[in-house]
């Protein structure tokens, strides 16, 4: 079985939504569309009071790493102001009151990936057109579609692979042609055999390979996936394109193919709403729908909800309010019950080595955290803190409950601020 070094096996809880068909979420009454959804923040192109249609461009930026944002509903712009952002901060967003008619703008023939506003749909939110235009001198030989979906609870890519395998594969063919690469691989973890079979069926007419990879967290990390499939390592500080690869999420390939087919930009995506809700579901959601609307769509909370997370339990970000809208890169709304939320006190390290043995990039998280806790950020950077992929395994396995990944992130943030 193809895999990487380190990593851990988790309790997945995917049974809550695995195999459930994707259903359309209710049209939101108010869509809150963030101007910052991948790359640089966009400048608004609409004013308060303007009527807008589905697919109309709401904001764009002239920065290199940026992608425009589009309206997901038709209606009227009621405000352009700060709103809670899925990443835990506040950021400027366009509020649109929906008229419920879903009037669309006319399709654009041969819409470009940038104009379609497509970003990394696996959570990275990196503008897709940048990835597909590797800078001079990079020869891409392999494009890997990431269908590993290694985080517990999340099943949105799984559902997409079950329902749209052909669209995903067509998207991959498009990417292969764009970057003139020879080899295409769709990687699926071996806990999703049904999805693997669907993909296998869809690639039968092409020379694309469907590959099973071991179910192990964080198999879906791009560095881990490249190593598992090709035994190549992404150089420190570099990108997969530095070793001739592009790694993209299956959702991104689907979004690219869909925009090519319909001429419409990216305005909706599949999101798993799961955990302590009455009816956990895979929903096709309009970008900008608030969390509260999605939870109501799934029958409301069950039990005592204590944490609301956008993303998975290993890397997701807790939300303080249900008013936060989902973005293009949101994969999951996870509600944790009170009984699953434990708060721990950090104790001193007993040097058990579990973080060292499980780190997927072979760092020594305990030492990096020690440096960071003692304000020795330079030392943490010298010892590889920038190579950390922030997967959270070190904090997960730590028997003394140290917040290791948090301290490493702090060192990285201090460095990036400089």
């Amino acid at each position, binding site marked *: 079985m193809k895999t990487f070094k380190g990593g851990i096996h988790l309790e997945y809880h995917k049974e809550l939504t695995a195999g459930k068909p994707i259903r359309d979420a209710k049209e939101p009454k108010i869509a809150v569309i963030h101007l910052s959804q991948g790359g640089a923040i966009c400048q608004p192109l609409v004013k308060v009071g303007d009527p807008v249609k589905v697919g109309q461009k709401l904001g764009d930026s002239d920065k290199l790493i940026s992608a425009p944002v589009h309206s997901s509903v038709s209606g009227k712009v009621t405000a352009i102001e700060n709103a809670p952002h899925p990443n835990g901060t506040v950021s400027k967003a366009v509020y649109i009151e929906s008229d419920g008619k879903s009037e669309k703008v006319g399709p654009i023939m041969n819409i470009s990936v940038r104009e379609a506003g497509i970003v990394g749909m696996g959570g990275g939110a990196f503008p897709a057109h940048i990835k597909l235009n590797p800078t001079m001198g990079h020869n891409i030989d392999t494009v890997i579609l990431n269908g590993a979906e290694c985080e517990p609870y999340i099943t949105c890519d799984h559902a997409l692979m079950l329902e749209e395998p052909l669209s995903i594969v067509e998207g991959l063919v498009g990417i292969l042609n764009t970057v003139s690469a020879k080899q295409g691989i769709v990687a699926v973890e071996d806990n999703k055999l049904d999805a693997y079979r669907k993909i296998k069926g869809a690639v039968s007419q092409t020379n694309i390979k469907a590959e099973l990879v071991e179910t192990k967290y964080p198999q879906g990390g791009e560095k881990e996936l490249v190593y598992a499939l090709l035994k190549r390592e992404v150089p420190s500080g570099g990108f997969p394109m530095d070793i001739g690869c592009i790694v993209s999420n299956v959702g991104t390939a689907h979004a690219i193919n869909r925009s090519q087919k319909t001429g419409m930009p990216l305005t909706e995506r599949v999101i798993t709403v799961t955990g302590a809700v009455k009816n956990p579901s895979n929903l096709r959601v309009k970008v900008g729908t608030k969390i509260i609307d999605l939870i109501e769509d799934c029958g409301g909370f069950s039990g005592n909800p204590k944490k609301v997370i956008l993303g998975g339990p290993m890397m997701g970000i807790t939300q303080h309010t249900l008013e936060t809208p989902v973005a293009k890169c949101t994969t999951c709304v996870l509600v944790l019950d009170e009984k699953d939320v434990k708060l721990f006190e950090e104790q001193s390290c007993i*040097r058990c080595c579990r973080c*060292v043995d499980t780190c997927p990039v072979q760092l020594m998280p305990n030492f990096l955290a020690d440096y960071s806790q003692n304000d020795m950020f330079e030392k943490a950077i010298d010892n590889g803190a920038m190579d950390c992929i922030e997967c959270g395994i070190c904090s997960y396995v730590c028997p003394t409950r140290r917040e290791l990944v948090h301290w490493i992130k702090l060192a990285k943030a201090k460095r990036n601020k400089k």
Partner: protein
Amino acid sequence: MSRFSITHAPHIRTKDDSTRIMFYTIIALLPAAIAGTCLFGMNSIVLMVSSIIAAVITEYLMLFMRGKKAVPADVFSAVITGMLLAMVITSATPWWMVMMGSIFAISIVKHAFGGLGFNIFNPALAARAFMLASWPVIMTTWPKPFDMATGATQLALVKSKALEMSIMNMPGHINTYWQLFIGSRGGSLGETSVIALLIGAAFLLIKGIIDWRIPVSFILTVAAISALFGADPIFHVMAGGLVLGAFFMATDPVTKPMGRAGRWIFGIGCGAITVVIRFLGGYPEGVCYAILIMNGFTPLIDRYVTDRVYGHGVKNRKNDKRHN
């Protein structure tokens, strides 16, 4: 104030906390403790209990003096130290002596350096060295199993060439291996029964509590070097405290290096020093001092021997035409 709890990722944690790890370690020591009691009589239990009591009371006292709150992990770790100390001394030791050792282990070796997680030396082994220096005669009086008479250990006999002759030249040496394996020989309370120790070690390995690199490199080094010296490697692996030391002492999380390469160096170093002491040193047994010496090297190893991080030393293939 939000009704929701705001924390940073990850939002789930393993159930294996330090208390549980230490509880498993205690369970893993039980077979050897029971074997020791069967072999050396009821005084073994007296020693283990008094050692544990002294260790736990000292732990509470030290935490109180340092103004710290006792957490379960602290207490469990003191129990392990007490238990290990009783297992590395002879069953002829009086109970008050092992209590002195326990107090030394917890107060001087552990808490003087900062308590759980900060000690440089393995507390039980350092306390054994302290006791050996303080009461050399009693600490080297080895009762024979199932017997109240005392004699020399197999390794001490080797030093006087008597046993080596018997192993090398007598047809009955299979019998000696068997005796070493089940533990029917003179030696420390918990070190003699190889089979009981291996059962505990297997449990720890399966539970992922100890790493295989240190015991494997430790034992293989001892076997290889003793074979080079022309001695019987199987005998040298099973005799003395090697199995106990390799699986339960050298793997003590706090005092071993963190890196994978560092752990190999640590194990090989322990093995080499053990053999050097056994063959060339003044003592018949070297495991205790070998581990203590390598404990001292641990910070140095951690500083200079690190594993290669993913993506370091990897060539950027930019402008490399071969791959298209």
